[in-house]
Protein backbone atom coordinates (compact mmCIF):
# COMPACT_ATOMS: atom_id res chain seq x y z
CA UNK A 1 0.00 0.00 0.00
CA UNK A 2 2.09 2.86 -1.29
CA UNK A 3 0.64 5.66 0.81
CA UNK A 4 2.82 8.45 2.18
CA UNK A 5 2.21 11.19 4.74
CA UNK A 6 4.32 14.29 5.30
CA UNK A 7 4.24 17.12 7.81
CA UNK A 8 5.18 20.77 7.43
CA UNK A 9 6.62 20.57 3.90
CA UNK A 10 5.19 22.31 0.87
CA UNK A 11 5.46 24.31 -2.34
CA UNK A 12 6.52 27.91 -1.58
CA UNK A 13 6.45 29.10 -5.16
CA UNK A 14 6.11 27.98 -8.74
CA UNK A 15 6.94 29.32 -12.22
CA UNK A 16 6.46 28.07 -15.78
CA UNK A 17 8.00 28.66 -19.20
CA UNK A 18 6.39 27.78 -22.55
CA UNK A 19 7.65 28.17 -26.11
CA UNK A 20 6.38 31.32 -27.82
CA UNK A 21 5.32 29.40 -30.97
CA UNK A 22 1.57 28.84 -30.82
CA UNK A 23 0.09 26.00 -32.88
CA UNK A 24 -3.54 26.62 -33.81
CA UNK A 25 -4.96 23.10 -33.87
CA UNK A 26 -7.76 23.84 -36.36
CA UNK A 27 -5.05 24.96 -38.79
CA UNK A 28 -2.80 21.94 -38.17
CA UNK A 29 -4.00 20.49 -41.46
CA UNK A 30 -0.84 19.60 -43.35
CA UNK A 31 -1.47 15.85 -43.21
CA UNK A 32 -5.23 15.59 -42.66
CA UNK A 33 -8.33 17.16 -44.25
CA UNK A 34 -9.60 20.24 -42.41
CA UNK A 35 -13.01 18.67 -41.66
CA UNK A 36 -11.37 15.64 -40.00
CA UNK A 37 -9.13 17.96 -38.01
CA UNK A 38 -12.16 19.98 -36.86
CA UNK A 39 -13.93 16.82 -35.64
CA UNK A 40 -10.87 15.75 -33.66
CA UNK A 41 -10.17 19.21 -32.21
CA UNK A 42 -13.82 19.72 -31.21
CA UNK A 43 -13.85 16.33 -29.49
CA UNK A 44 -10.58 16.63 -27.55
CA UNK A 45 -11.04 20.35 -26.79
CA UNK A 46 -7.40 21.21 -27.46
CA UNK A 47 -7.37 24.44 -29.48
CA UNK A 48 -3.79 25.63 -29.07
CA UNK A 49 -0.45 24.13 -28.15
CA UNK A 50 3.09 25.42 -27.78
CA UNK A 51 5.90 23.87 -29.83
CA UNK A 52 9.54 24.36 -28.92
CA UNK A 53 11.92 25.17 -31.78
CA UNK A 54 14.56 22.58 -32.64
CA UNK A 55 17.20 24.27 -30.47
CA UNK A 56 15.06 24.26 -27.34
CA UNK A 57 14.95 21.30 -24.97
CA UNK A 58 12.75 20.60 -21.95
CA UNK A 59 15.73 21.59 -19.79
CA UNK A 60 15.85 25.05 -21.44
CA UNK A 61 12.21 25.66 -20.56
CA UNK A 62 12.88 24.54 -16.98
CA UNK A 63 15.99 26.71 -16.78
CA UNK A 64 14.01 29.82 -17.72
CA UNK A 65 11.21 28.91 -15.29
CA UNK A 66 13.79 28.40 -12.53
CA UNK A 67 15.56 31.70 -13.22
CA UNK A 68 12.19 33.48 -13.12
CA UNK A 69 11.32 31.85 -9.80
CA UNK A 70 14.74 32.59 -8.28
CA UNK A 71 14.49 36.23 -9.32
CA UNK A 72 10.85 36.75 -8.29
CA UNK A 73 11.29 35.08 -4.89
CA UNK A 74 14.84 36.34 -4.28
CA UNK A 75 15.96 32.78 -3.60
CA UNK A 76 19.52 32.39 -2.30
CA UNK A 77 21.04 29.86 -4.71
CA UNK A 78 23.51 28.68 -2.08
CA UNK A 79 20.60 27.36 0.00
CA UNK A 80 19.34 25.01 -2.72
CA UNK A 81 20.47 21.55 -1.65
CA UNK A 82 18.39 19.41 -4.02
CA UNK A 83 17.46 19.60 -7.71
CA UNK A 84 15.18 16.95 -9.25
CA UNK A 85 14.43 17.04 -12.98
CA UNK A 86 11.34 15.12 -14.14
CA UNK A 87 11.19 14.42 -17.88
CA UNK A 88 11.03 11.79 -20.60
CA UNK A 89 12.66 14.16 -23.10
CA UNK A 90 16.08 14.64 -21.50
CA UNK A 91 18.99 16.43 -23.22
CA UNK A 92 21.22 13.33 -23.47
CA UNK A 93 21.18 9.62 -22.67
CA UNK A 94 23.94 10.59 -20.26
CA UNK A 95 24.74 12.43 -18.13
CA UNK A 96 21.53 13.21 -16.26
CA UNK A 97 20.07 16.56 -17.33
CA UNK A 98 19.58 17.61 -13.69
CA UNK A 99 23.36 17.73 -13.26
CA UNK A 100 23.77 20.02 -16.27
CA UNK A 101 21.03 22.22 -14.79
CA UNK A 102 22.84 22.32 -11.41
CA UNK A 103 25.79 24.01 -13.09
CA UNK A 104 23.72 26.18 -15.43
CA UNK A 105 21.66 27.54 -12.53
CA UNK A 106 24.81 28.33 -10.57
CA UNK A 107 24.09 25.87 -7.76
CA UNK A 108 26.86 24.55 -5.52
CA UNK A 109 28.68 21.26 -6.00
CA UNK A 110 27.14 19.91 -2.81
CA UNK A 111 23.71 19.91 -4.49
CA UNK A 112 21.91 16.57 -4.80
CA UNK A 113 20.83 16.27 -8.46
CA UNK A 114 19.17 13.43 -10.37
CA UNK A 115 16.52 12.79 -13.04
CA UNK A 116 13.19 11.01 -12.75
CA UNK A 117 11.95 9.29 -15.92
CA UNK A 118 8.16 9.36 -15.63
CA UNK A 119 5.39 10.84 -17.78
CA UNK A 120 1.95 12.03 -16.78
CA UNK A 121 2.28 10.88 -13.16
CA UNK A 122 5.74 12.49 -12.91
CA UNK A 123 4.98 15.74 -11.12
CA UNK A 124 3.17 14.03 -8.24
CA UNK A 125 5.88 11.35 -8.05
CA UNK A 126 8.58 14.03 -8.18
CA UNK A 127 6.86 15.99 -5.43
CA UNK A 128 6.74 12.92 -3.20
CA UNK A 129 10.48 12.31 -3.75
CA UNK A 130 11.34 15.91 -2.97
CA UNK A 131 9.09 15.95 0.14
CA UNK A 132 10.94 12.85 1.35
CA UNK A 133 14.33 14.55 1.02
CA UNK A 134 13.16 17.82 2.51
CA UNK A 135 12.21 15.99 5.74
CA UNK A 136 15.97 15.86 6.35
CA UNK A 137 17.45 18.67 8.43
CA UNK A 138 20.35 18.87 5.95
CA UNK A 139 18.09 19.93 3.08
CA UNK A 140 17.12 23.60 3.20
CA UNK A 141 15.57 24.37 -0.18
CA UNK A 142 14.70 22.05 -3.07
CA UNK A 143 13.93 22.76 -6.70
CA UNK A 144 11.61 20.45 -8.58
CA UNK A 145 12.03 21.03 -12.32
CA UNK A 146 9.62 19.31 -14.67
CA UNK A 147 9.83 19.76 -18.45
CA UNK A 148 8.71 18.11 -21.67
CA UNK A 149 9.08 18.60 -25.40
CA UNK A 150 6.31 16.12 -26.09
CA UNK A 151 5.67 17.68 -29.51
CA UNK A 152 8.74 15.82 -30.77
CA UNK A 153 7.75 12.42 -29.42
CA UNK A 154 4.73 11.78 -31.65
CA UNK A 155 4.25 11.59 -35.42
CA UNK A 156 2.33 14.47 -37.02
CA UNK A 157 0.96 11.83 -39.44
CA UNK A 158 -0.67 9.70 -36.74
CA UNK A 159 -4.10 11.16 -36.04
CA UNK A 160 -4.32 9.29 -32.73
CA UNK A 161 -1.67 11.55 -31.23
CA UNK A 162 -0.98 14.37 -33.71
CA UNK A 163 -3.35 16.89 -32.11
CA UNK A 164 -2.80 16.30 -28.41
CA UNK A 165 0.68 17.11 -27.22
CA UNK A 166 2.56 20.30 -26.42
CA UNK A 167 5.71 21.56 -24.70
CA UNK A 168 6.43 23.33 -21.42
CA UNK A 169 8.63 23.48 -18.34
CA UNK A 170 8.13 24.43 -14.71
CA UNK A 171 10.12 25.07 -11.55
CA UNK A 172 8.78 24.68 -8.02
CA UNK A 173 10.48 25.65 -4.74
CA UNK A 174 9.83 23.22 -1.89
CA UNK A 175 10.69 23.93 1.73
CA UNK A 176 9.84 23.14 5.33
CA UNK A 177 7.30 25.40 7.03
CA UNK A 178 4.87 24.73 9.87
CA UNK A 179 2.22 26.62 7.92
CA UNK A 180 1.91 23.66 5.51
CA UNK A 181 0.58 21.06 7.96
CA UNK A 182 0.02 17.55 6.64
CA UNK A 183 0.01 16.18 3.11
CA UNK A 184 -0.81 12.74 1.72
CA UNK A 185 0.29 10.83 -1.38
CA UNK A 186 -0.74 7.62 -3.14
CA UNK A 187 1.62 6.22 -5.82
CA UNK A 188 0.86 3.33 -8.21
CA UNK A 189 2.27 1.33 -11.17
CA UNK A 190 1.01 -1.26 -13.66
CA UNK A 191 3.71 -2.49 -16.05
CA UNK A 192 1.33 -5.07 -17.56
CA UNK A 193 -0.12 -2.15 -19.50
CA UNK A 194 3.24 -0.74 -20.65
CA UNK A 195 2.29 -1.06 -24.33
CA UNK A 196 -0.68 1.35 -24.06
CA UNK A 197 1.63 4.36 -24.45
CA UNK A 198 5.05 3.50 -25.75
CA UNK A 199 7.99 4.29 -28.00
CA UNK A 200 9.25 0.93 -29.26
CA UNK A 201 12.74 1.74 -30.53
CA UNK A 202 15.64 4.03 -29.79
CA UNK A 203 16.49 2.62 -26.36
CA UNK A 204 18.76 -0.32 -25.60
CA UNK A 205 16.11 -3.05 -26.12
CA UNK A 206 15.60 -2.01 -29.76
CA UNK A 207 18.46 0.35 -30.63
CA UNK A 208 18.13 3.05 -33.27
CA UNK A 209 18.81 1.81 -36.82
CA UNK A 210 17.95 3.18 -40.27
CA UNK A 211 14.99 0.75 -40.16
CA UNK A 212 13.56 2.14 -36.91
CA UNK A 213 13.63 5.63 -38.45
CA UNK A 214 11.57 4.61 -41.49
CA UNK A 215 8.00 5.86 -41.71
CA UNK A 216 5.42 3.07 -41.96
CA UNK A 217 1.66 2.85 -42.29
CA UNK A 218 0.70 1.27 -38.97
CA UNK A 219 -3.05 0.63 -39.12
CA UNK A 220 -6.16 0.40 -41.29
CA UNK A 221 -6.74 4.15 -40.86
CA UNK A 222 -3.52 4.97 -42.72
CA UNK A 223 -1.73 6.47 -39.74
CA UNK A 224 2.01 6.81 -40.31
CA UNK A 225 4.88 6.79 -37.84
CA UNK A 226 8.32 5.34 -37.22
CA UNK A 227 9.32 2.89 -34.48
CA UNK A 228 10.96 5.84 -32.73
CA UNK A 229 7.72 7.77 -32.46
CA UNK A 230 5.49 7.32 -29.46
CA UNK A 231 2.10 5.68 -29.91
CA UNK A 232 -0.99 5.48 -27.80
CA UNK A 233 -4.02 3.23 -27.55
CA UNK A 234 -6.38 6.04 -26.56
CA UNK A 235 -9.41 3.81 -25.95
CA UNK A 236 -7.60 1.57 -23.49
CA UNK A 237 -5.94 4.53 -21.80
CA UNK A 238 -9.44 5.94 -21.22
CA UNK A 239 -10.62 2.53 -19.94
CA UNK A 240 -7.60 2.41 -17.62
CA UNK A 241 -8.26 5.88 -16.26
CA UNK A 242 -11.92 5.05 -15.55
CA UNK A 243 -10.99 1.79 -13.83
CA UNK A 244 -8.10 3.06 -11.70
CA UNK A 245 -8.15 6.82 -11.13
CA UNK A 246 -11.46 7.29 -9.23
CA UNK A 247 -10.47 4.34 -7.01
CA UNK A 248 -7.11 5.92 -6.22
CA UNK A 249 -8.70 9.28 -5.48
CA UNK A 250 -11.08 7.69 -2.98
CA UNK A 251 -8.18 5.77 -1.44
CA UNK A 252 -6.15 8.95 -0.97
CA UNK A 253 -9.04 10.81 0.68
CA UNK A 254 -9.73 7.84 2.97
CA UNK A 255 -6.05 7.74 3.98
CA UNK A 256 -6.09 11.49 4.68
CA UNK A 257 -9.42 11.08 6.56
CA UNK A 258 -10.68 13.96 4.45
CA UNK A 259 -13.93 14.55 2.64
CA UNK A 260 -13.81 15.16 -1.11
CA UNK A 261 -15.53 18.51 -0.55
CA UNK A 262 -12.49 19.80 1.37
CA UNK A 263 -9.94 20.81 -1.32
CA UNK A 264 -10.15 24.27 -2.83
CA UNK A 265 -8.94 22.93 -6.19
CA UNK A 266 -8.59 19.62 -8.01
CA UNK A 267 -5.74 19.78 -10.51
CA UNK A 268 -5.75 16.79 -12.85
CA UNK A 269 -3.28 15.76 -15.50
CA UNK A 270 -4.51 17.53 -18.64
CA UNK A 271 -5.02 14.59 -21.01
CA UNK A 272 -7.77 16.06 -23.19
CA UNK A 273 -10.94 18.01 -22.40
CA UNK A 274 -13.27 15.13 -23.17
CA UNK A 275 -11.67 12.75 -20.70
CA UNK A 276 -11.11 15.42 -18.05
CA UNK A 277 -14.68 16.71 -18.21
CA UNK A 278 -16.02 13.18 -17.98
CA UNK A 279 -13.81 12.49 -14.96
CA UNK A 280 -15.03 15.68 -13.29
CA UNK A 281 -18.67 14.66 -13.83
CA UNK A 282 -18.07 11.09 -12.71
CA UNK A 283 -16.48 12.34 -9.49
CA UNK A 284 -19.30 14.91 -9.07
CA UNK A 285 -16.85 17.77 -8.67
CA UNK A 286 -17.81 21.43 -8.87
CA UNK A 287 -16.43 22.71 -12.20
CA UNK A 288 -15.25 25.89 -10.43
CA UNK A 289 -12.81 23.79 -8.44
CA UNK A 290 -11.32 22.01 -11.45
CA UNK A 291 -9.05 24.35 -13.41
CA UNK A 292 -8.14 23.38 -16.98
CA UNK A 293 -5.34 24.58 -19.25
CA UNK A 294 -5.49 21.78 -21.82
CA UNK A 295 -7.42 23.97 -24.29
CA UNK A 296 -4.47 26.35 -24.69
CA UNK A 297 -1.41 24.21 -23.93
CA UNK A 298 -2.53 20.69 -24.89
CA UNK A 299 -1.26 17.61 -23.08
CA UNK A 300 2.23 18.39 -21.77
CA UNK A 301 2.58 15.07 -19.91
CA UNK A 302 4.08 15.54 -16.42
CA UNK A 303 4.14 19.32 -16.85
CA UNK A 304 0.38 19.64 -17.22
CA UNK A 305 -0.49 19.71 -13.50
CA UNK A 306 2.00 22.41 -12.45
CA UNK A 307 1.45 24.35 -15.71
CA UNK A 308 -2.27 24.42 -14.88
CA UNK A 309 -1.46 25.74 -11.41
CA UNK A 310 0.63 28.56 -12.88
CA UNK A 311 -1.71 29.37 -15.73
CA UNK A 312 -5.07 29.04 -13.94
CA UNK A 313 -4.46 29.56 -10.21
CA UNK A 314 -2.29 32.68 -10.23
CA UNK A 315 -4.03 35.13 -7.87
CA UNK A 316 -6.17 32.35 -6.39
CA UNK A 317 -3.69 30.84 -3.92
CA UNK A 318 -3.66 33.58 -1.28
CA UNK A 319 -3.82 32.35 2.30
CA UNK A 320 -4.13 28.67 3.08
CA UNK A 321 -5.40 26.50 0.22
CA UNK A 322 -5.74 22.77 -0.16
CA UNK A 323 -5.07 21.20 -3.55
CA UNK A 324 -5.77 17.70 -4.77
CA UNK A 325 -3.40 16.64 -7.55
CA UNK A 326 -3.77 13.55 -9.72
CA UNK A 327 -1.57 12.43 -12.62
CA UNK A 328 -2.05 9.30 -14.75
CA UNK A 329 -0.57 7.88 -17.93
CA UNK A 330 2.47 6.29 -19.57
CA UNK A 331 3.78 3.31 -17.61
CA UNK A 332 1.06 2.88 -16.71
CA UNK A 333 1.80 5.01 -13.69
CA UNK A 334 -0.59 7.06 -11.58
CA UNK A 335 -0.36 9.16 -8.45
CA UNK A 336 -2.58 11.33 -6.25
CA UNK A 337 -1.74 13.90 -3.59
CA UNK A 338 -3.62 16.10 -1.15
CA UNK A 339 -1.37 19.04 -0.30
CA UNK A 340 -1.66 22.46 1.32
CA UNK A 341 -0.19 25.72 0.10
CA UNK A 342 0.14 28.94 2.06
CA UNK A 343 0.40 32.18 0.11
CA UNK A 344 2.07 30.21 -2.67
CA UNK A 345 3.98 32.50 -5.00
CA UNK A 346 2.92 32.02 -8.65
CA UNK A 347 5.11 33.78 -11.22
CA UNK A 348 3.91 35.09 -14.56
CA UNK A 349 4.38 32.56 -17.37
CA UNK A 350 7.62 33.12 -19.30
CA UNK A 351 7.53 32.77 -23.09
CA UNK A 352 10.75 31.57 -24.71
Amino acid at each position, binding site marked *: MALLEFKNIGIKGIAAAVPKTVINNYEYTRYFPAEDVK*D*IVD*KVGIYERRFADEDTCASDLCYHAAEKLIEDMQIDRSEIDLLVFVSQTADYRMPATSIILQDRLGLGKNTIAFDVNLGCSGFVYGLSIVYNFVQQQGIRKALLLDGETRSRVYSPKDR*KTAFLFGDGGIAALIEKDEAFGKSWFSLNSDGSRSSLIKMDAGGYRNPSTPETLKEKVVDE*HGNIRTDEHGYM*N*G*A*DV*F*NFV*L*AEVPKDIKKTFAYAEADMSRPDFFVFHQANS*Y*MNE*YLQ*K*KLKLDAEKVPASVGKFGNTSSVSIPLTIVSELQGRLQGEKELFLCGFGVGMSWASALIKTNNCHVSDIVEI
Partner: protein
Amino acid sequence: MEEKFIDALKEALEMEDQEVNFSDNFRDYDTWDSLSRLSLIAVLDSEFDVQIEDAEFAKLVTVEDLYNAVAAKQ
Protein backbone atom coordinates in the same frame (compact mmCIF):
# COMPACT_ATOMS: atom_id res chain seq x y z
CA MET B 1 -31.63 -3.37 -19.25
CA GLU B 2 -31.97 -3.84 -23.01
CA GLU B 3 -33.76 -0.54 -23.40
CA LYS B 4 -31.27 1.27 -21.19
CA PHE B 5 -28.45 -0.20 -23.27
CA ILE B 6 -29.99 0.85 -26.59
CA ASP B 7 -30.54 4.37 -25.22
CA ALA B 8 -26.91 4.53 -24.08
CA LEU B 9 -25.65 3.39 -27.46
CA LYS B 10 -27.86 5.92 -29.25
CA GLU B 11 -26.56 8.68 -26.98
CA ALA B 12 -22.92 7.76 -27.62
CA LEU B 13 -23.41 7.60 -31.39
CA GLU B 14 -25.76 10.62 -31.56
CA MET B 15 -28.45 8.41 -33.13
CA GLU B 16 -31.40 9.43 -30.94
CA ASP B 17 -33.77 9.70 -33.93
CA GLN B 18 -32.75 6.46 -35.60
CA GLU B 19 -33.62 2.85 -35.16
CA VAL B 20 -31.04 0.55 -33.62
CA ASN B 21 -31.45 -3.21 -33.88
CA PHE B 22 -29.59 -6.00 -32.12
CA SER B 23 -28.59 -7.51 -35.45
CA ASP B 24 -26.93 -4.30 -36.72
CA ASN B 25 -23.16 -4.13 -37.17
CA PHE B 26 -22.48 -1.04 -35.07
CA ARG B 27 -19.34 -0.14 -37.03
CA ASP B 28 -21.56 0.42 -40.09
CA TYR B 29 -23.41 3.33 -38.48
CA ASP B 30 -22.59 6.67 -40.15
CA THR B 31 -21.59 8.26 -36.85
CA TRP B 32 -19.27 5.42 -35.81
CA ASP B 33 -15.58 6.41 -35.67
CA SER B 34 -12.71 6.39 -33.21
CA LEU B 35 -14.10 9.53 -31.57
CA SER B 36 -17.54 8.01 -30.97
CA ARG B 37 -15.68 5.07 -29.43
CA LEU B 38 -14.61 7.47 -26.66
CA SER B 39 -18.25 8.50 -26.15
CA LEU B 40 -19.22 4.84 -25.95
CA ILE B 41 -16.53 4.18 -23.33
CA ALA B 42 -17.86 7.11 -21.27
CA VAL B 43 -21.50 6.10 -21.49
CA LEU B 44 -20.82 2.42 -20.69
CA ASP B 45 -18.90 3.59 -17.64
CA SER B 46 -21.53 6.06 -16.46
CA GLU B 47 -24.59 3.87 -17.12
CA PHE B 48 -23.24 0.37 -16.46
CA ASP B 49 -19.91 0.88 -14.64
CA VAL B 50 -18.32 -1.35 -17.30
CA GLN B 51 -15.07 -1.10 -19.27
CA ILE B 52 -14.43 -3.18 -22.38
CA GLU B 53 -10.77 -3.29 -23.35
CA ASP B 54 -9.64 -3.05 -26.96
CA ALA B 55 -8.70 -6.72 -27.40
CA GLU B 56 -12.22 -7.81 -26.41
CA PHE B 57 -13.92 -4.91 -28.17
CA ALA B 58 -12.25 -5.77 -31.49
CA LYS B 59 -14.12 -9.12 -31.51
CA LEU B 60 -17.55 -7.55 -31.05
CA VAL B 61 -19.43 -7.10 -34.31
CA THR B 62 -23.14 -6.62 -33.71
CA VAL B 63 -25.13 -4.52 -31.26
CA GLU B 64 -26.09 -7.80 -29.62
CA ASP B 65 -22.41 -8.75 -29.15
CA LEU B 66 -21.85 -5.43 -27.44
CA TYR B 67 -24.94 -5.89 -25.27
CA ASN B 68 -23.84 -9.38 -24.24
CA ALA B 69 -20.37 -8.11 -23.34
CA VAL B 70 -21.86 -5.41 -21.13
CA ALA B 71 -24.39 -7.80 -19.57
CA ALA B 72 -21.65 -10.33 -18.78
CA LYS B 73 -19.79 -7.71 -16.73
CA GLN B 74 -22.83 -6.63 -14.71
